[in-house]
């Protein structure tokens, strides 16, 4: 932890608006030319329960949050109780002067700055949320961050509440900054703005995926609210009128996916965002899409299960469920982006895969990836690389020229049958969810069954090459090779960096961003030189480790797993590695 890399944490009760204040502060830091990584931690309740938002900030790009905290902004005493242990030497706690801290909440090496938060907020307008503005001002003052960026964000964020609110917040922010500055002598860490830095973006996994999907032509989104999947539904709802998208908050998840299938059947690029429990209700229809070869994209932002589990926390425990969900056997793709960049790509690539292979595509995210914010370069969301490839979708002209009856499920060498959508006189057919013949009509003949099963299976022979490939990060050869998938990329990447900083060439890692069909050959090639394999994943049973053994025969030498609802962190990985190596 260099002084060039700070973590600021703001904590308090649910209902205090911590997340949006914290995200606003991260935005200000980003505008100030710094890189941030912001992550929220909250309970599944509307009020009460301890919530916090951590912002890591550095002049260098960041891929993960970290555990140690430099500056704790405590809106209540509970925050101090919970996070004092995480504070670094020389760190500081800012708290409300109205509280008297019990002695066990003091800690040598940590400074305590009392600020009359509630009193000042009342004085300046009354709204409790102004304490957030105030305390974040204090933070800016403490680290020596240019308050102009803070002010610009305040202006943007409070604009729709009117000039009076903006002004009040600006005033209290300034008060905070000055207060913070006055404490600087007792706080060794600084993080100044980088004035000439290029403009950057601050973006969450939810936003990145939604943007990718929109860019990729997603025009129909149906869902039912469920944390942390529904923010994608809500993102699309907010952009629907402007970008010509139909969104539907349906009566339940079953309706949502069936609506999406109906929309896709008639030719729209359609998606359902959900979380594991909602996905469970979509399982039957997933098979319908597989059988009738309807391209549909399912976005599952995982949260800890089983059942209701922990609604506002994170886990990576739905992988094998995604691969095997629904009765019978049919091809599907499972993607698991690891960064916001990859979320964006998964957004558009999933639709190309779905339409080219005429089969469902599942994008697995999780609460951590979906809700954390990261500062990235302006071109990180690569809009210019987006393509829209609708595969063997017959154009109007091709349909005009069609002779003879249209065979929706023609048996072809590739397994892919030219696809029409309803509405053309030359392509009038019925798709049957029962095993069907080339016309689409139910047919129980044994040879036909095998022909259609083989046709569908054939579609994905070799198609794992179309998925994001397993990526090696770090030196080609290393003593330890870590494996991970999805959102574990960031924390593990940082752990690998730190290991190599201490012992150059010690560790590398392979990240899976596409897991089904399993990229066997690429994996075998990447892992051939690996000496010691350790699989790091956010679940209890080791789902990637199982896939690895099943498809390559490699048995991992160790595992680092986490399933307490909190994301993996570099420190967690390193401390568990030491327990293992």
């Amino acid at each position, binding site marked *: 932890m260099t002084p060039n890399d700070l973590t600021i944490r703001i904590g308090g009760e649910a209902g205090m608006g911590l997340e949006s204040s914290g995200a606003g502060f991260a935005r200000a830091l980003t505008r100030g030319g710094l890189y941030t990584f912001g992550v929220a931690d909250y309970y599944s309740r509307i009020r009460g329960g301890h919530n916090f938002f951590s912002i890591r900030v550095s002049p260098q790009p960041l891929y993960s949050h970290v555990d140690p905290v430099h500056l704790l902004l405590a809106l209540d005493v509970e925050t101090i109780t919970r996070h004092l242990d995480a504070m670094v030497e020389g760190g500081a706690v800012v708290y409300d002067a109205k509280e008297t801290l019990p002695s066990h909440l003091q800690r040598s090496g940590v400074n305590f700055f009392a600020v009359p938060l509630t009193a000042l907020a009342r004085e300046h307008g009354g709204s409790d949320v102004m304490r957030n503005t105030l305390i974040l001002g204090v933070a800016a003052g403490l680290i020596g961050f240019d308050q102009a960026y803070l002010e610009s964000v305040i202006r943007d964020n409070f604009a729709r509440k009117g000039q009076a609110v903006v002004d009040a917040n600006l005033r209290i922010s300034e008060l905070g900054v000055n207060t913070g500055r006055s404490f600087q002598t007792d706080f060794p860490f600084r993080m100044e703005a980088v004035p000439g830095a290029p*403009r*950057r*973006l*601050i*973006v969450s996994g939810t*936003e990145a995926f939604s*943007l990718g999907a*929109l*860019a990729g*032509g997603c*025009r*129909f989104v149906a869902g039912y609210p469920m944390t942390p999947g529904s923010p994608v539904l809500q993102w699309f709802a907010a*952009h629907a*009128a402007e*970008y*010509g998208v*139909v969104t*539907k908050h*349906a*009566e339940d998840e*079953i*309706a949502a996916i*069936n*609506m999406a*299938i*109906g*929309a*896709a*059947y*008639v*030719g*729209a*690029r*359609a998606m359902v965002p959900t979380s594991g429990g909602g996905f469970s209700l979509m399982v*039957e*229809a997933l098979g*319908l899409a597989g059988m*009738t070869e309807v391209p549909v994209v399912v976005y599952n932002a995982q949260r800890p299960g089983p059942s209701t589990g922990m609604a506002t926390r994170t886990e990576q425990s739905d992988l094998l469920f995604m691969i095997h969900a629904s009765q019978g056997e049919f091809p599907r793709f499972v993607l698991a982006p690891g960064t916001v960049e990859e979320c964006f790509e998964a957004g558009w690539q999933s639709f190309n895969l779905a339409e080219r292979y005429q089969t469902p595509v599942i994008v697995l995210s999780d609460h951590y990836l979906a809700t954390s914010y990261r500062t990235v370069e*302006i071109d990180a*969301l690569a*809009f210019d690389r*987006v*393509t*829209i490839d609708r595969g063997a979708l017959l154009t109007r002209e091709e349909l005009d020229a069609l002779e003879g009856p249209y065979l929706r499920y023609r048996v072809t060498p590739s397994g892919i049958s030219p696809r029409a*959508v*309803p*509405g*053309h*006189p030359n*392509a*009038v*057919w*019925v*798709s*049957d*969810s*029962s095993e069907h013949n080339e*016309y689409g*009509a*139910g047919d129980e003949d044994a040879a036909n069954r095998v022909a259609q099963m083989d046709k569908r299976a054939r579609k994905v022979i070799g198609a794992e090459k179309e998925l994001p490939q397993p990526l090696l990060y770090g030196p080609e050869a290393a003593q330890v090779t870590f494996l991970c998938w999805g959102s574990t990329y960031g924390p593990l990447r940082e752990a690998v960096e730190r290991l190599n900083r201490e012992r150059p060439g010690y560790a590398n890692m392979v990240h899976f961003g596409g897991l089904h069909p399993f990229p066997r050959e690429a994996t075998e090639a990447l892992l051939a030189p690996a000496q010691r394999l350790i699989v790091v994943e956010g679940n209890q049973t080791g789902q990637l480790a199982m896939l690895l053994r099943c498809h390559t025969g490699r048995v991992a030498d160790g595992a680092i797993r986490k399933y307490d609802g909190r994301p993996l962190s570099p420190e967690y990985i390193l401390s568990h590695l030491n327990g293992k190596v």
Partner: protein
Amino acid sequence: MLTRKDFEGRERPTWCPGCGNYGILNAIKAAFVEHQIAPHEMLIVSGIGCGSKLPLYMKVTGYHSLHGRPVAIATGARLANHGLRVMVVHGDGDAYGEGLSHFLNAARRNVRLVDLVQDNRIYGLTKGQYSPTSEHGKRTPTSPEGALDQPVQPLALAIAAGATFVARGYSGELQHLAWLIGEALQHPGYALIDVLQPCVTFNRGYAYEFYNQRVYKLEDEPGYDPSNRTLAWEKSYEWGERIPIGILYRGSPLPTYEEQVPALRSGPLVARPLEKLGMAQVEALLRELR
């Protein structure tokens, strides 16, 4: 000029001889001819059941989908292409059992669908279990001591759910049924037609003889006013010596769901070319992230 022949399917129906579904199939074809709707202008989404095989037995664009889910699929299809006419055809088990919630939601949303339910008051394809509309006390393989549920009242429920076109047909009255389908097709919004459909194999108590003696047409009923919702609601409970068929309720049309969606004002979703975002759009989107 479309004729019956234009709707001839590739396959012969596999329904039992005498099954009420033949009449429904013929009535649908007749209505399409009457209203000159070509096979590719119509999407029939069906569920799973004997009757749900209907689109396979005529020439039409169709989707023989999942048990209980055709209404949701049809809703999605309408929202993505409201230039296409969409009809749902499914059994009573499909519509009022597995699919009950979708049916009621389509009604309150007023999605423009003709929802035709082949109400044989039994599960045909799975061989004769009692259905949501089976009478209390009915003995079947899943109710050997008699069904204990009170039957669902689909017409009353549809009215309570907000449907503005609620009708009952009878597959033994082909012309009348064809007329009903035509009216439903012209109704701007969700239209339910519950069709009394004899299942001659598993529900012999509700065969043609039973219905022929009892059904009467509301159009012939002096003074019956289908625009009176309370009257319609009461009428929907009439079942016994006399069974009404016809349009029970026709409320003043409400805007359809599709009409109200901002993104659909400029035409069907699928009619717009699928293009990459423009520079200005990308710029605007990125601005939100700064």
